[in-house]
């Protein structure tokens, strides 16, 4: 069962990597596909990672990718609205990562 999961995830990642190499696509689509590929590879680590610390590191990567998505959107559409979303997500990811770290350390979350 575990082997099947690994094979499925690796096939997904390879498919995403291959998707953006072929053809002549506009540069922003290529950039989106690159970031999506990176997020799926981090998702692999999120699934596999033996401890919670590994999953927290993978969540960091995915969160920063999401922040970068918002910034790219803001640059493409020339609206400063999307950067606000990125800032909010950066805050939330920071707090979430700290909560996971504190819980794994064994401390109470309110002390």
């Amino acid at each position, binding site marked *: 069962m575990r082997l099947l999961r690994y094979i499925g995830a690796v096939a997904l990642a390879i498919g995403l*990597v291959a998707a953006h190499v072929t053809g002549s696509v506009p*540069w922003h689509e*290529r*950039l989106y596909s*690159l*970031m999506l*590929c*990176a*997020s799926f*590879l*981090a998702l*692999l*680590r999120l699934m*596999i990672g033996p*401890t919670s*610390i*590994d999953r*927290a*590191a*993978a969540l*960091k*990567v995915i969160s*920063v*990718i999401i*922040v*970068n998505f918002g*910034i*790219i959107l*803001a*640059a*493409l559409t*020339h*609206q*400063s609205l999307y*950067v*606000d979303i*990125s*800032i909010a997500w*950066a*805050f939330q990811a*920071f707090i979430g*990562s*700290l909560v*996971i*770290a*504190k819980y*794994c*350390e*064994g401390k109470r979350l309110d002390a």
Partner: protein
Amino acid sequence: MHETTSFIAIALMLTGGGCSVVSAVSLLRFDSAAPRIAVSTKLHVFASMLIVAGAVLYAESMAVGLKALCCLCLTLITAPVEAHALLRAWHKQRGHGQSHGAPQPNSGHHEHL
């Protein structure tokens, strides 16, 4: 002028995307949790810096650029704090006994010169 600037901006953003992919791949390749945390802090934030630089160059308006720089400053400040917290938790999970592996100097061998 805008053509050249936007070409540099697009090159920066694509390099940033490539660095993101490299950091995600290196998440999968390392054996321990500590290098993974280091990569997600250093290499991935570097990729974010490249993308923000490209976005600031591409969008010629000051609103987008300044806000994106604020977002970058926030990411730069919070990423090492997260890394510290995660590494502290990892070190505690490994057990304190493994940290005392450094050789202690023998106090009996010191001669008075």
